């Protein structure tokens, strides 16, 4: 009973402190006094930290007096998975979300403490407190993580099997949530700017760092999620266009548009309406994403169990969008800028195309995600919208995106000078052509692959040229090379390079993946898609956490151990654990598909007509897949560089 009340007390404290901060801030605005709302934010943070501490204590000591712990933890759950158990299910995930949100509120209020009396900061604080109040309120009511377990349980159910076989469970959700929570800040400031009418200020620039940080963290979080699913799910893929995956992609798309669009506002004061709308849209899509994950209306391997939260989350989504739309309509007259875009192929023109492209794609992904619901409502039947649809839409979009990436860094502002553009793009254009010709000679024939390499080289060329320019300019000013990397577009160009690498990895691996099933007796070898595979035998591994039937397989003389694993716990069902041999040229993905004999204790499917001691292995060979993760790493590095970018007009800028 104690833990329940301790946890709840901490939550109530956090919630009341947030409300207090909200009220205090509003009063301060009303009476035009500087506010001390950071104190309220600190109390709120203390409360949520206390709640998290109680939950972690319960998880680590396997205290089943909390229903949440008995559902997500067992006495034999290792420390790491006990800690991560906090975000394995719905109520706990809200604890993580609120923790990050309260922390970021304190950070923001501290960062802007010298501008406390600025109305924009005050209104932004109001919005931040409001959002925090919502999420804390959810936990105080319908999503209580501290429900007392009436039954006296001696053993918990343990975490879901797929959430305890890879340490990435400790990194992917926190990064993702950090990204989502991070986007609350530009949203809050966008609302604040609209309320105060101060839309001409430099606030969007102020926000750039928060946005880049949130974007970078979200991007890395999504890539790590893809890597995690690649390592455990057993089909050799990394993205399934699953509703929850799409839910994380949607805010990322609008956030990417926002990051680019703000550059134009910085230089030429354009796109104010776009930028405010994108900031609001990104946060709203984050809320919509929580709806998809937690409402249970869409079938997904990632979704938390369904709950009553659906209508509440959708209601909150509605409020955020309606508020944004209403404020934009109200302040519309102030937002018109006197100048416009001069040429469709100028930098500004290309950035508009970029905005339309990303927002359009987000709309299409959203439509595809909710379409099954729409269809069921209208026609009563069930449909699936899966990879064929999304891929058909994503491919042309990616092509246009690569074209934009090849041109935009090289064109000028306001106008297009064809000769100058050609002189800048010439080298990449010839390189791309030569590379395509070389690929054709080497035997690559698929038009899509050739097109992808052509455009990717051009895009990489534009990025490298810009980076080279930064270094050259830096040298002229006698800067060190790592200072040059802090130049205006260096981080962004590194991100572009990361995107190019990822695009090439995706195109190559999806076009040339080969899947095979091979049957091998103990000691037998075979050659599959150019890989030499040998099966050496079985081994049973049993420890406190799991019982696994491991196979010793050699791929090109590297030992792999694909297995069928059963994690102990109430929901014990065998899961396939793939093994991957990875190098820069290709990934070999091996799964334990079936076993011969009659009902071996392995938990694998039994192939009746195979002799005992034989196995059926799934062998998937995916060329260049490792580069996908390398590209993701570049994304992270580029974001970090962009974060530490020198401001315009700082020392050393041209």
């Amino acid at each position, binding site marked *: 009973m104690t833990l329940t009340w301790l946890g709840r007390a901490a939550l109530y404290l956090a919630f009341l402190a947030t409300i207090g901060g909200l009220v205090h801030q509003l009063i301060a605005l009303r009476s035009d006094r500087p506010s001390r709302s950071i104190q309220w934010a600190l109390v709120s943070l203390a409360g949520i930290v206390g709640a998290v501490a109680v939950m972690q204590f319960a998880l680590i000591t396997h205290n089943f007096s909390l229903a949440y712990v008995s559902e997500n933890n067992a006495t034999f759950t290792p420390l790491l998975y006990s800690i991560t158990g906090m975000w394995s299910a719905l109520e706990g995930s809200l604890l993580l979300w609120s923790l990050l949100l309260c922390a970021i509120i304190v950070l923001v209020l501290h960062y802007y403490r010298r501008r406390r009396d600025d109305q924009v900061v005050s209104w932004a604080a109001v919005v931040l407190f409001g959002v925090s109040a919502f999420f804390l309120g959810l936990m105080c009511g319908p999503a209580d993580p501290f429900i007392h377990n009436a039954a006296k349980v001696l053993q918990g159910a343990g975490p879901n099997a797929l959430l305890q076989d890879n340490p990435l469970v400790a990194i992917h959700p926190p990064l993702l949530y950090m990204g989502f929570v991070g986007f609350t800040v530009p949203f809050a400031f966008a609302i604040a700017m609209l309320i105060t009418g101060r839309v001409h200020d430099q606030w969007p620039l102020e926000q750039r760092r928060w946005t880049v940080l949130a974007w970078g963290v979200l991007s890395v979080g999504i890539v790590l999620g893809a890597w995690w699913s690649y390592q455990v799910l057993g089909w050799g893929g990394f993205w399934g266009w699953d509703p929850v995956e799409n839910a994380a992609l949607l805010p990322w798309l609008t956030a990417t548009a926002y990051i680019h669009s703000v550059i134009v506002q910085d230089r030429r004061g354009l796109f104010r309406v776009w930028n405010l709308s994108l900031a609001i849209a990104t946060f709203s899509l984050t809320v919509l994403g929580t709806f998809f994950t937690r409402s249970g209306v869409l079938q997904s391997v990632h979704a938390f169990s369904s709950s009553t939260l659906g209508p509440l989350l959708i209601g909150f989504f509605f409020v955020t969008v309606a508020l944004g739309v209403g404020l934009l309509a109200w302040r519309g007259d102030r937002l018109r800028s006197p100048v416009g875009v001069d040429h469709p192929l100028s930098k500004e023109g290309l950035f508009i195309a970029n905005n339309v492209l990303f927002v359009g794609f987000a709309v299409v992904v959203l439509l595809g995600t909710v379409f099954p619901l729409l269809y069921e409502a209208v026609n009563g039947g069930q449909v699936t*919208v*899966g990879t064929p649809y999304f891929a058909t839409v994503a491919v042309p979009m990616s092509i246009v995106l690569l074209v934009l990436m090849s041109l935009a860094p090289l064109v000028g502002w306001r106008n297009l000078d064809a000769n100058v553009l050609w002189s800048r793009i*010439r080298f990449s254009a010839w390189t791309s052509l030569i590379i395509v010709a070389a690929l054709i000679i080497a035997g690559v024939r698929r038009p899509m692959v050739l097109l992808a390499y052509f455009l990717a080289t051009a895009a990489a060329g534009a990025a490298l040229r810009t980076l080279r320019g930064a270094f050259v300019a830096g040298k002229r000013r006698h800067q060190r090379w790592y200072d040059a990397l802090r130049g205006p577009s260096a981080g962004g160009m590194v991100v572009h390079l990361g995107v190019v690498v990822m695009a090439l990895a995706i195109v190559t691996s999806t076009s040339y993946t080969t899947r095979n099933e091979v049957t091998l007796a103990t000691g037998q070898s075979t050659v599959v898609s150019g890989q030499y595979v040998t099966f050496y035998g079985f081994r049973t591994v049993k420890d406190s956490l799991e019982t696994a039937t491991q196979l010793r397989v050699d791929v090109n003389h590297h030992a792999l151990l694909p297995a069928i694993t059963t994690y102990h716990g109430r929901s014990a069902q065998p899961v396939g654990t793939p093994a991957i041999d990875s190098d820069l040229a290709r990934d070999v993905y091996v799964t334990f598909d079936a076993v011969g004999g009659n009902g071996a204790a392995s938990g694998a499917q039994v192939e009746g007509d195979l002799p005992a001691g034989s196995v059926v292995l*799934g062998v998937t060979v995916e060329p260049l897949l490792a580069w996908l993760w390398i590209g993701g790493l570049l994304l992270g590095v580029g974001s970090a560089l962009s974060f530490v970018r020198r401001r315009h007009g700082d020392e050393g800028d041209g």
Partner: protein
Amino acid sequence: MKLVKLVKSFWLWCLAFLCVLAVALLEAPTTASQQGRIAHLETLVKCPACDDLSVAQSNATSSIAVRHDIARRVKEGQSDNKILTSLEATYGTSILLSPSTSGLGLLLWLVPLGAVVALVVAGARLARRR
């Protein structure tokens, strides 16, 4: 000097580009083969026991059964459309990974088209304003 000037010429590059394009298109593989058809159909059908994997990707028993079914039908000479509709009849409409374009499914394709139109219109309006 002349060679450099030639390489610098945009039109030469265009010519080279068109040559490479022609070669690429002529050499493009045709997917009319049975194997190609089977592989393509497998990417369009969902594995009955999974959430969003195609039968090409999943090795569940039901998935393998569907793969054999598709291969058999292709060898019998059934058209793609007939194969997909008969699978729908056995497993329900949710077995296809991309809804049919008739009826409500049309919306799924109109919206992306709308996005493309928006892009083109935006560009045209900008070009006209100059």
